[in-house]
């Protein structure tokens, strides 16, 4: 199995901050695996995901994708990384430009990264993949519900046929019933497209059905790492236990959580 991401001793301190927001953190992501990065807000999980995508420069350390550092990439190498790694953000109300039609939003990565692809048919194909009618292409984001918007965001991310999908809190802005639908969709797509998934979340309940491995972050550092099932059944670090205790019990999780408590 090949290693996609190698994060080596990455630290981040924001300008003017007294202490590091992140790190040092090291981890690796294997192809085909589903990795969860878990932590409360301020734990550095989003910072880590941005650095892994090369969207934020680290203060120290290196992130490599397939052996190439992701920072300061230019030209073909940059396009290559963007094509292989795509991102879905938390708030589908903020992540879709209010002035673009859904069709153009989904088409944007294709137009930049896959010139020459017949955009219209590909957009219809992508909307179908996220269970939306092709007629949605003509709509504006403000005409869509939160769940529909997040489907659009996922369709957009899948456009360039990425190897890795990084999803930063992809369902936490959504209603609970919609959350389950989007998670099912993500799981189906991940299987169907053989995606490697990096799921950033504060919610262990969301992660457990989707991710093989989990990393627990606290105050910018990784405090626990392991198979998600083991982590849930037998948390080692006190912070992980605390996090587990704070998960609101969804009906289908009653059994597992009952055991933990």
């Amino acid at each position, binding site marked *: 199995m090949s290693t996609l991401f190698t994060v080596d001793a990455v630290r981040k301190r924001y300008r003017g901050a007294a202490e590091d927001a992140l790190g040092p953190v090291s981890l690796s992501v294997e192809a085909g695996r589903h990795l969860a990065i878990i932590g409360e807000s301020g734990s550095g999980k989003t910072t880590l995901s941005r650095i892994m995508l090369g969207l934020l420069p680290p203060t120290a350390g290196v992130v490599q994708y397939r052996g190439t550092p992701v920072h300061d990439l230019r030209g073909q190498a940059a396009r290559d990384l963007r*094509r292989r*790694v795509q*991102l879905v953000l938390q708030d589908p109300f903020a*992540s879709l*430009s209010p*002035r*673009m039609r859904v069709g153009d939003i989904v088409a*944007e990565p294709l137009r930049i990264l896959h010139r020459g692809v017949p955009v219209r048919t590909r957009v219809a194909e992508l909307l179908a993949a996220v269970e939306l009618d092709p007629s949605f292409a003509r709509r504006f984001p403000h*005409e869509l519900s939160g769940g529909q918007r997040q489907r659009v*965001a996922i369709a957009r991310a899948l456009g360039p046929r990425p190897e890795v999908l990084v999803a930063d809190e992809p369902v936490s802005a959504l209603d609970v019933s919609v959350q389950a639908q989007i998670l099912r969709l993500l799981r189906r797509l991940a299987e169907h497209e053989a995606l490697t998934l990096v799921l950033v979340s504060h919610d262990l309940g969301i992660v457990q059905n989707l991710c093989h491995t989990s990393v627990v972050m606290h105050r910018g550092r990784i405090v626990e790492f392991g198979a998600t099932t083991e982590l849930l059944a037998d948390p080692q670090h006190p912070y992980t236990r605390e996090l587990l205790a704070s998960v609101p019990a969804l009906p289908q999780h009653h059994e597992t959580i009952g055991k933990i408590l």
Partner: protein
Amino acid sequence: MIALLRNPSGLVGVLLVAVVVAAALTSLLWTPHDPLIVDPAAGWLAPSASHLLGTDALGRDSFSALLVGAQVTLGSALLATAVAAALGLPLAAIIELTPPMLSAFLQRFVDIMIAFPTLILAVILVTSFGSSTWTAAVAVGLGASVVVARTVAPELRRARSSDYALLATAAGASSGRIMLHHVLPNAGSTIVVRLTQILAGSALAEAGLSYLGFGTPTPTPSWGRTLAEMQPQIMTRPEVLLAPALCIVIVVLGFNLLGDGLRDILDPRTRRSTP
């Protein structure tokens, strides 16, 4: 456009501006009398069928002067706003795109320029370059350009640090593409509304400068100067001041209401859900 007419402010704004534009266009082709013909014997005539609004001290037809004055008002408002946009928008982009230190310096510079009264700037320019409608309009535009820069720069910043701009970066978009496809369209409504307000402000500033004698020189009719020329009559026939004053109110109110209407319909939060 239809949405603008459905909006109450927008509708009234469009109507008022349309009246002024119609007056300006009409005056290009036809006026009841030549507003420049002086006839001292016919000075201070009361309104009649021939002279709808009477005549001024030199016997010139007031109604014709007001029609022609609309050209000056609209022309100088458009020129001032064009100058404000041509200088202010690039300045906003520079403030937004430069490193923090330089950006902070530029912002303080803009603050100082805002503090400098436009009227005094106009007086300086007019005394150096001679009194003309266009000098006054350029001066007003210069003063307004820093206001444009100051209000548009945060809008650009907001759009540039948005999630959709981040996703565009993650899709490999260049910063130029993000500016063109994401930042400008999303900051666009603020820019349009701001420029409409500047139109109102410029029309008022032109009237003010002309009133003070720093704007449009004689004999070209200008609402501000007409107002000044009518002034001696304020104790005896105050109604003759009403017409030029009302014209100024109409154009300023018209542009302001148009701006309000545009703001309402361009904001996605107040926009109707189906286009």
